[in-house]
């Protein structure tokens, strides 16, 4: 299970109040990647399609960031393996709305 923490506006859109749990294996044939986690998130909550990654290109939206285990994963490729503590559910993957605007 992978835990994902969403920013407030996306929690409202998705209709969730806390963390989101994604049913992804901790120990599959290959480590779960950042892209696979986001795919699973959008599959579980279709309303989030286009809010984190652009439709079509799949690129991260400019003012969205991905953090985990005190590291910034925002610039990592979709095939970047998530850190083990995230894959095992001990730490969440954080989706962050960047500090910008008012």
């Amino acid at each position, binding site marked *: 299970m992978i835990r994902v923490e969403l920013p407030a*506006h996306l929690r409202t*859109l998705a209709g969730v109040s806390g963390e989101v749990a994604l049913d992804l294996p901790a120990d599959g044939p290959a480590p779960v990647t950042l892209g696979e986690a986001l795919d699973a998130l959008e599959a579980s909550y279709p309303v989030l399609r286009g*809010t984190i990654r652009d*439709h*079509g290109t799949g690129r991260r*939206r400019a003012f969205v960031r991905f953090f985990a285990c005190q590291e910034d994963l925002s610039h990592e490729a979709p095939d970047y393996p998530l850190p083990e503590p995230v894959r095992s559910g001990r730490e969440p993957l954080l989706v962050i*709305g960047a500090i910008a605007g008012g």
Partner: protein
Amino acid sequence: MTGVRVLVGTRKGAFVLTSDGKREKWDISGPHFAGWEIYHFKGSPADPDRLYVSQSTGWFGQQIQRSDDAGRNWQSVGNEFSYDGVPGTHQWYDGTPHPWEFARVWHLEPSLHDPDTVYAGVEDAALFRSVDGGQSWREMSGLRNHDTGSSWAPGAGGMCLHTILLDPVNEGRMFAAISAAGAFRSDDSGETWRPITKGLRSETMPDPAAEVGHCVHRIAMHPERPDVLFMQKHWDVMRSDDAGANWYEISGDLPTDFGFPISVHAHEPETVYVVPITSDSLHFPPDGRLRVYRSRTGGNEWEPLTAGLPQDNCYVNVLRDAMDVDSLDSCGVYFGTTGGQVYASADSGETWSAVVRDLPSVLSVEVQTLP
């Protein structure tokens, strides 16, 4: 009971103002979609319970919200606005080619007849249509693929398709306006388009009478006389009597002919409203006095309407989609300001009062006259 519902989009959410036919006491609900920019919020003429909202932020992009029960419940519908084919380029501010990139939906125009059909005007300028209540969107690319499309350039607010008018009399005729490309007309339900700019002059362009490049701010029509169009251009208030084929200036004795919104009285096709703004670099009313100007002669002769509006130290703006009218016997006129006030007049503009004073900056005002 007959009444009105005023749908207000702001920079930080949507609000609904409801009143009976007297329009004296108001119920205010909101913010709905708090924290999001609501560029537009409009009801279906075919079903007043069907509402559409354009909801966006720079962080999380575009959402379209739909209600089937007059706003009691909402659902997010489709938010994928993909340009048809290989989008190509338009002109950027520095004159270089720039790829077409979707930014947001500026305007939603529900069909006059079918609650599930709705048009969307977007930035970068293009027209989309949904025939399934907003679940899916398809570009009507005949507009963007017009021969002139690659030369279109954004105005200061972005290259937005902000005005969509559906002709209730001439089947298949519709109008669109883009800042800063100009005005366009289709006579085949949006398949093909042609510029309708003859008579417009924009002195800030190398060729002031060029076919495209005019910064049209807003176009309005009276539904019973759709061949007559009124336009607030960046500068100049204009009129066409032949569905946009030819335009002539009707600024007349306005204190300034810069502004954004323009509306037509519900029962008097020759009565027109504008809100003069000082200039393109001073986006506030002249002399700090908020005045709606009304012409009862179809233009040229204008009278200031001030009763109930602030006449000193007022430095708000009124944006292009932020004025509308109701169709009660005594026509109501409504507008919202960048200072968060929504003003209403139940007597065609003779007197005004603020329905609410401290909303976030108002982006759009649409009025539903309820049976």
